């Protein structure tokens, strides 16, 4: 009996020892190649990863960022994916691309992974619902639809991405001229209302005042601006009005939504129509208002080339009083080596449409990017990529990122008492994020976008009216969406 017991004991110990030596995941060298736009939020991620990331699984993990310039980012990522080279394990993607690349079989459905991992579930629950809606769901679910379901993750909803950099547009303005006593008095005298100087003033700024600011600060060479004679022409305002990519759609959508109009709503497929909605009277009126302020903007607005980078540059060169641009482009404005207004700039929420009750609707089109995983990775790479997601979205990393010009989509981080003080635009970002909606996510989004941008560009350059532009957009969308069975 004793011998038997001893043998059993030896076997048990051996099995246990064998089991123990097999159970932990073997440490491996893992390289995660990530396609990323070349700008500060992704550069910081790489720097911070190299400094601080430790794999919880014990792997030696390298984050190999393929930094791609913004203008060719979509084409480069699309070419890589469709060529089948399987280069990337993770991709920083615009939310609009989800449909095209999910349907193409390139982006990984993370729903089951999130459901099985309490840490990922907690992150999803902590993310702002506007970001979950825009960055993660496909087929697209609106924030209202997700909130109606209540549960996170919502049953029946497929999730794909987590925020790498959640972006909103805010107002960048020159405090030295907007808070100049003489200018403030002259503005008050001319329009019977105050020139927005403080953050609170910008909270009360609607599009009408935005136009007044544009008219007021339009000065010619030799005129005085805040008591100083100008050596060049000066312009009051600027916002995006470019033909490329989405460089007018993002701003026009805000006007249309704020005034009660709509774009084709993919969340109401297949009953949602394009004709009659896209070119409704409300939408035409809103687009007309958008066009009406272009007269106060720098002359590049007449060429249809006033994109988000051009307005940033005009502001940094001291040619414009106030611009509406993405938070992600704020950091260079404060850089003394690049910006003439680095010590004069302040930030506020973007203007909106005043409602009958006096409140201001600031609904806007969300910017920024989620990151996604690709479908061809081995399990251990997927697990490690998700570890990278968890590392990036933990509050410590997020606060560090925000301190370095990034933004957070985590509500707990945004609620941190130090958050608003970390960067000068943070307060405006937190205020604006609640107003965000997104444009389409279906695979045909680029065709919809390109045609719309062309028609908007014709209106921006004065070739056609707002109504003609929206009629052409509505007709094109109706036909394309009917052909694709998105509209019954």
């Amino acid at each position: 009996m004793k011998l038997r017991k001893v043998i059993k004991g030896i076997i048990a110990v051996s099995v246990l020892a064998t089991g123990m030596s097999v159970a932990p995941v073997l440490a491996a060298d893992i390289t995660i190649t990530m396609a990323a736009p070349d700008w500060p939020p992704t550069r910081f991620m790489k720097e911070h990863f190299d400094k601080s990331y430790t794999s919880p699984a014990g792997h030696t993990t390298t984050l190999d960022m393929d930094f791609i310039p913004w203008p060719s980012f979509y084409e480069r990522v699309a070419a890589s994916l469709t060529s089948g080279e399987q280069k990337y394990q993770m991709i920083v993607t615009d939310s609009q691309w989800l449909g095209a690349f999910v349907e193409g079989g390139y982006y990984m459905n993370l729903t089951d992974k999130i459901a099985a991992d309490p840490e990922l579930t907690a992150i999803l629950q902590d993310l702002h619902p506007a970001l979950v809606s825009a960055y993660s769901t496909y087929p697209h679910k609106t924030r209202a639809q997700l909130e109606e379901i209540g549960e996170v993750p919502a049953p029946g909803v497929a999730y794909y991405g987590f925020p790498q950099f959640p972006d909103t547009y805010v107002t960048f303005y020159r405090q030295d001229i907007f808070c100049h006593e003489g200018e403030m008095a002259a503005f008050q005298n001319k329009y019977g209302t105050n020139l927005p100087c403080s953050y609170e003033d910008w909270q009360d700024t609607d599009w009408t005042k935005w136009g007044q600011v544009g008219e007021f600060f339009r000065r010619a060479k030799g005129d005085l601006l805040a008591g100083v004679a100008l050596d060049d022409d000066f312009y009051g305002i600027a916002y995006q009005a470019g033909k490329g990519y989405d460089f007018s759609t993002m701003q026009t959508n805000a006007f249309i939504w704020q005034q009660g109009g709509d774009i084709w709503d993919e969340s109401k497929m297949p009953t949602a129509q394009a004709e009659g909605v896209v070119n409704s009277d409300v939408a035409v009126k809103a687009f007309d208002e958008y066009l009406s302020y272009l007269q106060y903007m720098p002359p590049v607005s007449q060429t249809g080339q006033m994109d988000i980078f051009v307005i940033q540059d005009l502001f940094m060169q001291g040619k414009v009083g106030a611009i509406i641009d993405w938070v992600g482009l704020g950091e260079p404005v404060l850089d003394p080596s690049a910006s003439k207004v680095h010590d004069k700039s302040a930030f506020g929420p973007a203007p909106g449409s005043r409602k009958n009750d006096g409140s201001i609707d600031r609904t806007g089109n969300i910017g920024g990017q989620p990151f996604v995983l690709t479908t061809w990775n081995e399990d251990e790479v997927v697990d490690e990529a998700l570890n990278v997601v968890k590392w990036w979205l933990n509050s410590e990393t997020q606060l560090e990122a925000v301190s370095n010009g990034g933004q957070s989509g985590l509500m707990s981080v945004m609620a941190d008492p130090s958050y608003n003080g970390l960067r000068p635009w943070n307060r405006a970002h937190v205020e604006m994020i609640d107003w965000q909606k997104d444009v389409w996510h279906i695979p045909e989004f680029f065709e919809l976008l390109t045609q719309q941008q062309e028609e908007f560009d014709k209106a921006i350059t004065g070739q056609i009216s707002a109504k003609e532009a929206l009629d052409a957009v509505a007709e094109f969308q109706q036909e394309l969406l009917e052909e694709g069975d998105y509209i019954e």
Partner: protein
Amino acid sequence: MANTAKTRSGFGAWLLDPKRRGALLVAPAITILFVMNIFPLMWSFGLSFFNYKASSLKVPTFKGFDNYGKVLTDERVWERFQTTAIIVSSSVIMQLIIGFLMAMMFAKVFPLRRIVLMLVLTPMMLSFVSVGVFFKLFYEPTFGIVSFVLNFFTEERFVLLGSPEGAILGIVIADAWMWSPFVMLLVLAGLVSVPKYLYEAAEIDRASKWRTFWTITFPYIKSLLLLAVLFRTIETFKLFDVVYIITDGGPGSTTETIAVYLYRTAFQFFKTSQSSALAYIVLFIVIVLTNLYLYAVNRREEEVE
């Protein structure tokens, strides 16, 4: 000794037989050509008969000539062909005029001629992207040099790219700036090949300058001019980079050439089969133009002989 005297036998001997050596030597080049050019061409030609989208997992189905029909009846395609034709004709004419005048100038000897000639040839050696970026910055109405200079006279900002006509002109100027030196080189080659004694004889006969040009100079350069026209037409027909960078096809779509539209269809809209069909239509046009070009080259050779 025995080793060196050993004759090859079997497959090695068969392969290295002098009869096959030529084929063996060209085989790598043919293989690369087939893999890199012929196979993709055949593949994309095949794709043009399906409804394949590179971004979709749907199994493509055979559609016959549907894509060709769709492309040829698409108003937007014809608009782009018209735009291309306007840009090609304007640009080639401008290149011919400027190139010809420059060739006349450089046919004469003057101080620093070689250095000036070298400088004039520089644009041709730049990349399309650089030229596009240069001109986009030149035309920028707030900071750009064109607006800056004109502002001295008009006291207003000059917005060249704000209208369809201005934008086309902007592209044509950039393309002509880049490629007029090429036309100049061709014409200059013709000019220097004219025997000097013919001019001396014309001078003795007191022929007018126009008469001298028309009866002596022009016959020597006309086939080269035709070459320049055809070569530049083929190249400008495919114009992409400069348009994409300077105007992105705008305002609206008024400067969008067929090459830019083809790019959008293939790589932004991912209508792979439809874009293949359009690419073959463009290829057909280019082949026709190339044949004209080869015909002109042959005539030139006959004339030289």
